[in-house]
């Protein structure tokens, strides 16, 4: 635990990133999509002599500039803040690995924003051809930002050839292995299609506000709908391609929730995938049906309903993508709680908190009576990245009904991380010495049951090994018998 832990009440640090990031995707993908839509529509207007479109397009580009320049930038920076606080190890790994990638991304951002401002402010002030060229330049710069960030995002799930060099100390020399990973192109296709669709949706939101008497409204609304729908025809192919690049054991997470969605089953990915499919189809279908017969009567309220649907589709899809990667932040290299795969053995031997600066008692540490700070630090470092006590994925609820012994059994299963452990598919191994794990068990016992409900029996007097390891041996044996006999809901549900 090299960094302090960010404890966000109720929703947890993970969803703090999630909420900010989902809003950012809704806006940033609009930025890329509309970056293409605007020059295309402007060229069409010029070609067909529809000069009455220009004032509306100018207003739309102002809306576009403000939304993407302000909210897009704010949420984008918000992602930086929240990932740095929630997962400093992961953020550090990404920064060190993609240094110049990030730098180039920022260059493209600056070019993109400058061009967006220039595009709006020079409407009717510079020759038509030049203005159009500005628009095309913007769309290239904007798509450039997607091209770069896509490499970093897809690297996390499919690091590809880079994984062979992980931990060698010169990972950043293998930038291209990491960037051009197996998931890169299918994801780029999917995101570009999503950008095109979102451009259409925001267009519907904006042009829906035109008064019914406006004669340009039917055309502009129809035109926006045409941008929403084609993406859905191509998406299935890219999606199938994307799924093929997802490692098989991660793909299996999609099926975990088919048999049951009850407590103890990790059904999140299945359920969110269902929502993603339905919401995506409904967004396209609703856009289609709302505007088919009388686009001139499309209202802003209907546009906002579509935006809500698009938000649901975006949120659920990004949620599926993130959860597919469990239990890693960088697949095969770095677990979600900041523990490196390569560091597991050392931490088990020397201790999880051995190199942590945060081990002592701190004023106002909020320790419940009877708990020790080691247990609390173990909890904060290894559990808080995905769980809360009473809010999102609440441990008080998930461990309810278990006494200290039973909690110890779960921790042992997590620590052993065996091939047939039901938790292995979505949880990292629990690392630490037996003393640290026992401290965590006591801490959780107090949090769940209000007091210590079980004390391990003292070791036999003729032991030659250290007391704590002997205890673990006894615990493990008992755990093996007990966990077979006990009704382990997770095992039952996943059978």
């Amino acid at each position, binding site marked *: 635990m090299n960094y302090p832990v960010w404890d966000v009440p109720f929703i947890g640090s993970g969803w703090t990133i999630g909420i900010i990031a989902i809003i950012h995707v809704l806006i940033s993908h609009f930025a890329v999509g509309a970056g293409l839509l605007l020059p295309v529509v402007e060229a069409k207007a010029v070609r*067909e*002599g*529809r000069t009455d479109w220009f004032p509306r397009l100018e207003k739309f580009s102002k809306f576009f500039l403000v939304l993407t320049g302000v909210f897009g930038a704010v949420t984008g920076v918000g992602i930086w803040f929240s990932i740095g606080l929630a997962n400093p190890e992961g953020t550090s790994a990404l920064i060190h690995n993609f240094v110049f990638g990030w730098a180039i991304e920022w260059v493209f951002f600056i070019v993109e924003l400058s061009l967006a401002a220039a595009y709006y402010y020079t409407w009717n002030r510079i020759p038509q051809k030049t203005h159009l060229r500005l628009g095309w330049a913007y769309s290239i710069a904007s798509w450039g930002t997607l091209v770069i960030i896509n490499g970093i995002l897809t690297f996390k799930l499919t690091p590809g050839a880079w994984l062979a060099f992980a931990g060698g100390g010169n990972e950043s020399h293998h930038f291209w292995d990491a960037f051009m990973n197996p998931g890169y192109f299918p994801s780029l296709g999917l995101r570009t299609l999503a950008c095109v669709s979102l451009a259409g949706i925001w267009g519907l939101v904006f042009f829906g506000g035109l008064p019914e008497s406006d004669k340009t409204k039917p055309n502009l609304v129809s035109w926006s709908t045409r941008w929403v*729908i084609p993406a*859905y*025809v191509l998406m299935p192919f890219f999606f199938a391609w994307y799924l093929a690049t997802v490692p098989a054991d991660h793909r299996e997470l999609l099926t975990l929730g*088919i048999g049951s969605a009850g407590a103890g089953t990790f059904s999140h990915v299945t359920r969110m995938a*269902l929502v993603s*499919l*339905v919401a995506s*189809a409904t967004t*396209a*279908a609703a856009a*289609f049906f709302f505007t*088919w017969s009388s686009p001139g009567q499309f209202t802003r309220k209907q546009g906002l309903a579509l935006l809500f649907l698009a938000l649901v589709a975006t949120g659920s899809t990004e949620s599926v993508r993130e959860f597919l990667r469990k239990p890693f932040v960088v697949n095969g290299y770095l677990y979600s709680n900041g523990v490196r795969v390569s560091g597991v053995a050392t931490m088990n031997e020397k201790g999880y908190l051995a190199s942590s600066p945060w081990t002592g008692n701190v004023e106002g540490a909020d320790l419940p009576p009877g708990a020790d700070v080691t247990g609390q630090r173990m909890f904060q470092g290894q559990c808080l990245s995905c769980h809360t006590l009473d809010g999102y994925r609440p441990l008080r609820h998930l461990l309810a009904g278990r006494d200290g012994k039973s909690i110890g059994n779960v921790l042992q299963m997590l620590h052993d991380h065996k091939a047939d452990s039901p938790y292995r598919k979505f949880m990292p191994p629990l690392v630490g010495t037996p003393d640290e794990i026992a401290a965590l068990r006591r801490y959780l016992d107090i949090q769940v049951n209000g007091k210590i409900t079980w004390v391990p029996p003292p070791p036999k007097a003729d032991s030659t090994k250290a007391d704590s390891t002997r205890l673990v041996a006894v615990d493990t044996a008992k755990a093996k018998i007990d966990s077979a006999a006990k009704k382990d809901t997770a095992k039952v549900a996943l059978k």
Partner: protein
Amino acid sequence: MSDETQNNAPVDDADRRGFLKIAAAGALGAAYAGMVGYPVYRYLASPIEKAAAEGAVKEVVLDHGLDTPKNSALMFQFGQKPAMLIHHEDGSWTALSAVCTHLGCTAGYDAAKKIIYCPCHGGQYDPHSGANLGGPPPKPLAEYKVRVDGGKVVVSRA
């Protein structure tokens, strides 16, 4: 200029627009049919999938199989399908599938005639080998391996 370009294309444009509308509607309809249809199909087919999984049953232990009297058959379930364990007059044992190869009825052992008989359409099988002797069945009954293990009868796939 714009009038002419617009007037030249109305029919083609309308046709193309109509076709695109129908194509889009069709694609969306197919997407919905798939999204609703897939879970419904898996839901209705669930017992079939479970049976297939159980069909991977390799052997069945009959705790009281040895108690079967001579010249009679013990009916039991092998996985999802009915089967019979026959104790012959001469003391030998045969285990066969009881699913008639004609139309799937459950055949039984006729002790009086010492033959396996299917009441649905009168099929007849040899009780030692399962061979189809008479009536409509086109194929013999599937045979299982029988062995005794610790006082119990173990029937396994041949």
